[in-house]
Structures are given as structure tokens and as C-alpha cells.
């Protein structure tokens, strides 16, 4: 039973993905495009060559950071929807350090990454303080702060750190940019993301503090009665999750985008939440999910270019993956479904 549960939680996303693609193909066929050509170009775009794999991994990097951010916070029972704002604040501070401090190279990179993480953590801490000391709903606060951060980034790229005729900041100096891996688009930011994922995994499941943090997330009252400093854990989860997102913002800036510009990081926060939940709040599964979505996005660009199918079809497929997976995972937890499964296995046993 235990194993069949694990199998199911693995199968559901797979089936959901297939279902989403079937619907996507029907839509494409109705539009007059050949779905097989479309799917082929989707695959080629995402994984067709080493370079494309590199691009996919590069695109997945920021998503991994924001989904780990969500994953960490949710494990402590904190609905941090502010991954995007924290990501942006991290990248803003990073941009400031990279372009204004006059330092370049590795020291600058380190400073940038730390600065970004600190900025993300502090930005997130605002929501944390309001939750813990003013009893505020963190979802609303973090969403509002996302808007504030986005607008603040606007000030930075249109005014304060503007470079040239377009509202965008100066580019990160070449020496401060993260190095590419094997000459591909993917940079060491991806390695950092993986490392953070492993760290989060280790922390949550192999340390005493991580254990206590999860306990707080599952039952705050009981955690308090059992002597855990609940407020401290909640604040910590805000800070750490914000720092992860902020670090992601820095890494994205130093690794891929090099400058802040309108649309930087747009939607990554919510994407991260969805991916963390599809990954069932398991840090490592979350990474896989993020890579999958990145592949879908990169591939869909090629698909659109090759077949003229609008990119919104790929958006719909992505949304359907989420719609089906979440519903599917809920469904298999229903007692009725469990009983059904139970009967199935029973019958198989009888047959054997």
C-alpha cells in the first residue's frame, strides 16, 4: 500500500502531462497545424541539441530558485506568494553592487549573490513581521509587496541606474558575469540552484531544526506547546525563502539577463508556487518539475516559430498540466479513490 501510494504520486503528474498534451494536440489539429510536427519541434526546441538543453536548463534556473522558495516557506506553513518580489529585490541589489561598486570578478560575484540573498530575505521579512506581530494574512501582503517591488525595479531601470535610451540598467560587467557551462547558455547559476535544492532537502529532512520547522508547518499550536519557538521559525522561513528567491534574482541577473529591464522576472513567483506544489513540496521533485516547465517553455518557442501555433497554446498546455496534476493528486487522496485502489489490488491478489 505504501509503495503503491508512492507510485501513484509519481504516476499522476505523468498522466496529467499526457492528458494536457492530448488536449493541446486536439487544439492544434483544429487550428490546422499538424500536432506531430508541433510536438516534434517542441521536443527539438527543448532537448534537440546540446545547445537547446543548455537553454532549457538556463531557463529552468530562476524557476528552481522561486519554487524552492515556495517549497521552503510552505513546509513551515507560510503561504509566501511573494517569491517574485523577493526575486526582484535580490536582483536590484545585485545590480546595484555589480554596476556601482566598482568591484569586478569573483569578489563582486560573491558580494552580489550574498547581497541579493540578504535583500530578498529582508524584503520577505517585512511580510513575516506583519504576519507574526500584526496577524496579517501573508498571501495578501506578499502579493502587494510584489507590485511594490516591480514598480521599484521600474524606478531603478528608468531612473536611478538607467543606461542609455531604453529604460534598462547598465549591464553587469563581463568579469562579474557567471561563467557558462561547456559554452552553453546554462551557467554556474544552475549549479548554485541545484546546490540550494540539495541543501534545502538536507535541512528539511536530515536536521533537527528542519524537523521542527516542518512540525511548526503542520500544527503550529502543538509545536508551540512542545516548546518550539514558533514565531522564530515563521520569521526564519520568511527570511530563508526570501533569501533563496533573492539569490535566484542575483543569479539570473549575473548569469542570463545581465541587466534589469521591463518584464524581468515577471511571473516567476507564481510559477514557483505552482511547481513546488506539483512537486508536492519535495525540494528535489520540485527541481525536476521546474526543469520540465522550462523545457515546455523553451520548446514552445520553437514550436510557435516552426508551426505558427500561437504560444498561448503552449500556455494552455502548461496550465492544463497544473490543472490536471493538482486535481489528480487531490483525487488519489480521496477515501473513495483509495478504496477503489484497494479493491483493485485485492482483486489482483485474488487473481494471483
Amino acid at each position, binding site marked *: 500500500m505504501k509503495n503503491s501510494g508512492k507510485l501513484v504520486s509519481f504516476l499522476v503528474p505523468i498522466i496529467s502531462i499526457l492528458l494536457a498534451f492530448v488536449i493541446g494536440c486536439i487544439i492544434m489539429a483544429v487550428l490546422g497545424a499538424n500536432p506531430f510536427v508541433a510536438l516534434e519541434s517542441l521536443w527539438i526546441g527543448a532537448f534537440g541539441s546540446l545547445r537547446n538543453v543548455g537553454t532549457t536548463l538556463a531557463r529552468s534556473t530562476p524557476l528552481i530558485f522561486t519554487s524552492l522558495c515556495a517549497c521552503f516557506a510552505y513546509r513551515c506553513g507560510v503561504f509566501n506568494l511573494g517569491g517574485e518580489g523577493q526575486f526582484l529585490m535580490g536582483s536590484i541589489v545585485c545590480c546595484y553592487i555589480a554596476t556601482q561598486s566598482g568591484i569586478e570578478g569573483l569578489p563582486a560575484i560573491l558580494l552580489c549573490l550574498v547581497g541579493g540573498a540578504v535583500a530578498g530575505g529582508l524584503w520577505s521579512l517585512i511580510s513575516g513581521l506583519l504576519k507574526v506581530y500584526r496577524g496579517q494574512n501573508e498571501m495578501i501582503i506578499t*502579493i*502587494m509587496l510584489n507590485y511594490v517591488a516591480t*514598480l521599484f525595479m521600474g*524606478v531603478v531601470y528608468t531612473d536611478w541606474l538607467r543606461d542609455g535610451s531604453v529604460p534598462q540598467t547598465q549591464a553587469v560587467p563581463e568579469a562579474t558575469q557567471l561563467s557558462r557551462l561547456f559554452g552553453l547558455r546554462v551557467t554556474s547559476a544552475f549549479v548554485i540552484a541545484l546546490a540550494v535544492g540539495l541543501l534545502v532537502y538536507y535541512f528539511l529532512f536530515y536536521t533537527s531544526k528542519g524537523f521542527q520547522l516542518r512540525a511548526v508547518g503542520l500544527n503550529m499550536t502543538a509545536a508551540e506547546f512542545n516548546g518550539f519557538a514558533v514565531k522564530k521559525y515563521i520569521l526564519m522561513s520568511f527570511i530563508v525563502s526570501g533569501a533563496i528567491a533573492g539569490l535566484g534574482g542575483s543569479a539570473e541577473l549575473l548569469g542570463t539577463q545581465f541587466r534589469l529591464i521591463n518584464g524581468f522576472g515577471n511571473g516567476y513567483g*507564481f510559477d514557483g508556487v*505552482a511547481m513546488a506544489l506539483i512537486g508536492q513540496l519535495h525540494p528535489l521533485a520540485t527541481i525536476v518539475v521546474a526543469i520540465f516547465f522550462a523545457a515546455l517553455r523553451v520548446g514552445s518557442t520553437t514550436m510557435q516559430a516552426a508551426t505558427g501555433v500561437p504560444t498561448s497554446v503552449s500556455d*494552455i498546455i502548461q496550465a492544463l498540466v497544473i*490543472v490536471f496534476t493538482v486535481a489528480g493528486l*487531490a483525487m488519489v487522496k480521496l477515501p473513495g479513490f483509495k478504496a477503489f485502489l484497494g479493491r483493485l489490488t485485492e482483486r489482483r491478489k485474488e487473481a494471483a
Partner: protein
Amino acid sequence: MEFVMNIILSSVRMATPLIFLALAELYSQRAGLVHIGLEGLASIGSLVGFLVSLITGSPMLGVLAGAAVGILVNMIFAYATVTLCAEQIVYGMAINIFAPALAAFIYRVYFGAGSELVQVGLMNTLSSSLGITSDNFLVRLLLDQTPMVYLAYGLVIFTVIYFNRTKSGLNYKAVGEYPKAAATLGINVIGVKYAACVICGALAGIGGAYLTTCYANTYVDGNVAGRGFIALAAVIFGRWSGAGVLLACLFFGFCDALQIRLQVGSFGVPYQFFQMIPYIATVVVLAGIGMKKAGPKSSGKPYLKEER
């Protein structure tokens, strides 16, 4: 004085779509369903409202179609969260990703690429239907509004009465507070939750359709522009009551109106700072009033029939 009156008019204008969306959220949360997917519902409502009013030439039909499609899409949410007991927050998010993509897709398929700017006729205001033209502030405030504005305020009054005076409203609230208790008293919990989703979908769809049938005469992707989230804040801010929600929406409308006017009056401050006003105001006000009364107790929690 002129300035103040203009701001009031403008606040009312900006608050109206928020009222629809916030009421949608209110009805959802009162039945224990936290719905963060209003943004998505509104965006599809906005598109369908636009298309139908374009095709039929009747903005009223557009609004109805917006409501219908809102309900339709929200049935996905209903099935997943009520019947399958999926996590509501995630599902709201899924709707937020799915519905706008669908809207963009329909628009593209309908108009093809590179079409001209399509504009529709907007709903007439009462004063223009009556043929009244006046510069008088009160006339403008009270009469120079589309039927949808009266509908919005009518719905607020209805909501207040419904939840405070009627038996059905009391039962409805019980579902959001303690569904199991409601069930033991013979209240059809699942039914109420589905009804809530119908109401929520309809109101959110109307809120979206309002944007293209009464406000702007064009459709652009992303025209809901965060109103769904502001509405969510308005419900919390308004303490889950009809009147409170109305005040919250007017407050947000006011912040937005003020922001625009301040920008036009420009003080050499980067415009983004003005645009932050509504959001920062939300955070500051929420932080200021603290959290004495929380929302419906069962909000966000799934209701499994045979679970303890």
C-alpha cells in the same frame, strides 16, 4: 473643490470593477473557498464580454456572456476543490494561469494576426439614456453611470441583507464556518459550495466584462491588471462583510484615482512611486488595523464528507 469632485467621480469609476470582484471573493470565502484565481476569471470574462458585445452590439449581452463564461471556468475550480478536495490556493493559481491563456488564445483565433484595433460601443449611462447633460457634480455622480454601477451597489445592499437577515444567508455562512456542523443540520454543504462557485464565477466574469463593456472600449491581454488580487485584499480589509468590502473597494478606487491625479500634477518624482500608492496603502492599512476577526473558519480547508 473641482479637484476633489473629480477624484470622487474617478474613485467611483475605478471602484466598480473591484466591487464585483470583491463580492465574488466574498461569496466564495463565505462558503469556505479561498479563491485567488479571480484575476483569471475576470480576464476570460473580459474577453468574452468584449466579443459578445462586439458581435451582438449589445453590451448587456456581453456582460451576461461574461458571467456565463465566468461560471463555466469556475466550475473547473468547483469540481477540483469541492468534489476532489484539491488545495484551493493552488487551484486558484492554476485558474490564473489557464484562463488568461485561454482568453489570449481565443482572441488570436477569432481575429487572426495583425488585425486592426477593434473597438466596441460601451454601455450607455443612465443620464445619456435619459438625455440629461449636466455639469452638476451630483448629477454626474448619481446619474452619469452605467446600469452596472447601480447593479454593483445594489448587490452590496443585497449581500448585506442576505448575510444578516435571511435564513439562507445564515446557512450559507455556516458552511464557511463549520461545514460538518452545517451538514448535520441538513444543510447541503456541497450544494452551497457549488452555488458559491456559480455566484463567484458570475460576479468575477461580470467584473471582467465590465472592463470591456463599460470602461475601456478595447480588449488587451492583461487588462485586469491585478484587480483580482486587490479584490482579495478588499475582502480581508472589509472584514468579510458586504459593507466593509464596499468601503475597501472605494478606498482602493480612491488610491488609484489619487495616484493618477498626482502623476498628472507631477512633482518630478518617478511615476512608479505614485503607482505604488494603492499597494502600499493596503499593506499599511492592514497592518494598522491588525487582525482581530479572522475570516470564515473553514476557509481554505477541503470538506471531505466522511472524514472527522
